[in-house]
């Protein structure tokens, strides 16, 4: 079997195991949270009677193990179940129907940010390695370090203040719905994407710079220099291919952050992404939704890490063609 295929299959198998463990952990921790869906929804209106009626209707009066087995069994059949909200009425809201538009929005924002941020940080990083210790290098380092060290909500407020209130170039609210036209979606998501770009560029750019500089000291780079390869070509042709592995890992890590970790930015810009959905669902104890979100997040991490590993294998001939 080809080593790449073998690794992919191995990783996928491990990933499934991880997902299973995650599902147990999530289910158990939600069970341990104080209060239930009925109390959360009814608030002060929760009398023992209404709570009991509620719990019976959504099946919460059965033991946790039974509910877990039933849930995992349904997931294996591709059924994420129904949200507790709206249960009992004739309109049941399935979890997948609830999550799908939010997930689309989240991926939209993540991809939009990635399209800008990844090439930008690679470009900045390569230039910084090329012109190491120059004024350019120092400025880029300082600026990106500043943006990464500033909390994302603060960057968001600053951008909003300048670009939405002082100069009304962008919207301060990024509310979109499924009827929003594509271009308007991009326009509305511009400020959140810019905020996220500022947050993640530093990490990827510095990793690119560091791994390139690390390689510049190695003997084969000295050889390239001695045989007269121009510096720029030496970096792009000889150093970069060997630097892909660590860079890809960092990029994967940041992309995962774009999917699972942007709830603060979503709240500030009122962008209906999956982070807000999950936080809402945790506070209202809408377990089926929380569990599905957590599984999606875990799967995102596993898949992105897997792709980073594939990139490092493919770009490294020693791993690609083992003896």
């Amino acid at each position, binding site marked *: 079997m080809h080593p790449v295929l073998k690794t992919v299959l191995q990783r996928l198998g491990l990933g499934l195991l991880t997902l299973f463990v995650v599902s147990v952990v999530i289910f158990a921790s939600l069970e341990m949270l104080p209060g239930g869906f009925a109390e959360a929804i009814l608030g002060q209106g929760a*009398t023992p009677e209404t709570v009991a*009626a509620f719990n019976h209707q959504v099946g919460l009066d059965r033991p946790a193990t039974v509910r877990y087995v039933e849930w995992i069994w349904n997931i294996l059949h591709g059924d994420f179940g129904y949200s507790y909200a709206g249960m009992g009425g004739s309109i049941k809201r399935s979890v997948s129907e609830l999550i799908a538009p939010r997930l689309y929005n989240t991926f939209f924002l993540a991809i939009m940010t990635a399209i800008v941020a990844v090439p930008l940080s690679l470009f900045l990083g390569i230039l910084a390695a090329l012109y190491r210790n120059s004024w350019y290098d120092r400025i880029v380092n300082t600026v990106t370090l500043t943006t990464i060290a500033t909390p994302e909500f603060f960057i968001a407020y600053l951008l909003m203040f300048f670009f939405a209130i002082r100069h009304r170039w962008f919207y301060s609210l990024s509310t979109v719905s499924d009827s929003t036209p594509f271009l308007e979606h991009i326009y509305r998501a511009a400020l959140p994407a810019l905020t996220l770009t500022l947050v993640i560029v530093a990490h990827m750019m510095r990793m690119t710079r560091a791994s390139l500089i690390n390689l510049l000291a190695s003997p084969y780079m000295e050889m390239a220099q001695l045989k007269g390869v121009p510096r720029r070509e030496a970096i792009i042709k000889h150093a970069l291919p060997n630097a892909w592995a660590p860079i890809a890992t960092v990029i994967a890590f940041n992309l995962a952050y774009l999917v699972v970790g942007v709830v603060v930015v979503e709240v500030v810009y009122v962008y209906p992404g999956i982070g807000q959905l999950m936080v809402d669902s945790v506070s209202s104890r809408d377990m089926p939704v929380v569990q599905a979100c957590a599984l999606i997040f875990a799967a995102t991490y596993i898949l992105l890490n897997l792709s980073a590993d594939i990139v490092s294998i493919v770009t490294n001939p020693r791993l690609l063609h083992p003896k």
Partner: protein
Amino acid sequence: MNDTQHKLNAALGQALKGRITRREFTQLALASGVTLAAANSMFTKAWADEPKKGGNFKVGVGHGATTDSMDPGLYPDQFTGTALWGTLANSLTEIDADGNVMGDIAESFESSDGAKKWVFKVRNGVTFHNGKTVTADDVIASLQHHLGENSKSAAKSLLKEVAVMKADGPNTVVFELTGGNADFPYTVSDYHMPIMPKNPDGTVDWQSGIRTGAYKLDKFDPGVQASFTKNENYYKPGKGWFDTVQFLSIKDSAARTNALLSGEIHYMDRCDLKTLDQLKANPDLTVSEITGYGHYIYVMNVTQKPFDDVNVRMAIKYSMPRDAILESVFLGHGTVGNDNPIAPTVKFAIDPMPKHTYDPAKSKEYLKKAGLDSLAFDLSVADAAFAGAVDAALLWKEKAKDCGIDINVIKEPEDGYWDNVWLKKPFVASYWSGRPTVDWMMTTAYAADAAWNDTFWKNAKFNELLIAARSETDEAKRAAMYAEMQQILHDDGGLVNMLFNSYVEAHAKNLGHGKVAANWQLDGMRVAERWWFTS
């Protein structure tokens, strides 16, 4: 009013209808001896005050969750209340800006048999958004929705006194109550009880969003937004001016403020008090402040030591620096409480004497009466009860030291506060959004058998009066009974009513409105029906 003024007013009316021009009006005004500037300002003012049709009204609300449902029995807060009730629907009755109850879907209502039997006449010619006429059957099905064994409705306990509910012809609904209740028309004004169309099988159609209100539902995206278009056949004259209305759920108060500043919304609720001056400084915005029925309280379990001694309770009531808390924690946005949960704007409210203010000498006197030199107890608080609960408690702790009272403030987790702390710990921070009648408030939280009796206070005289007053139809006698009840609660009860909070909201200057209601936020939750754009 003299003759000239009378003619001018008539002319102004004509001008507003577009029958005479501004120039013609000005000429007329000049001829009657009014200066040019005055004539101009008369015209402009009348033009601005006069409701105008049109516009897309956008409101940012600090509530809303993905779990929100179309089922009115489960409306949790302002978002569903304002959008899916105040904008979309009507109840049998409504509460006007002065706190009086008046007919809405019901044209009239009257009681007999000591307020035990209520007859509501359904207004003629009110239609649902699908064109169907509202009948007594729809009303009964809508209220029946909250009853029954499996009901999860928040209105279930409100309607539990209804013994029989039947239609008498297509336009009359008769209620028979288990006991007299002169305030029953107030009960059915609640936002959980909109009138909805009946299904052929006897249940009610709450799912489709077809109601009777000033706007029809376009799209409801739980936790994100709800949008509406004008209902051209709305039965109420002079209501529902906007072409379209949109409610956005913006939970972050800074995001809400920014949306208003950048003109993306026209109205926001729950302003951040710390940045209020910036909003006030903006020439395009107006900040409004209404003292509502809501109050921030600390409640003790009077069945537990040391709170079972009324002297201890009095000592505690005199140890709270309400004025200082109002000034420093709530920046003056509210009215100090006097251990009476009935807001001053509610009918039959009194201000019991002596006023409970910060008074270390009196506090110590009561401690001595209780046979104590000093007092120490735990106070469980979290900002989940109300924003500022922790800060207020800490300030109280500092000031109470001078009264010989040592308060141990315990900060409880916000998550699950209402399940694990409220009604469980002996002394906790709590909040009531208030009720429009004395009876309703007292029955909900202070009656001996109330599910939410969070002080566990059972006063025989109080409960006797509560039941007697409920069926008393003589207003003067009722007022006297309610005054006595409020006095008893003030002197003996386990609540420390710190303050009545204000609804602080902000809106664009080009919005016009009448007197703003105090029963709920957002003009009694009916802002979309009652307000209009002036330009």
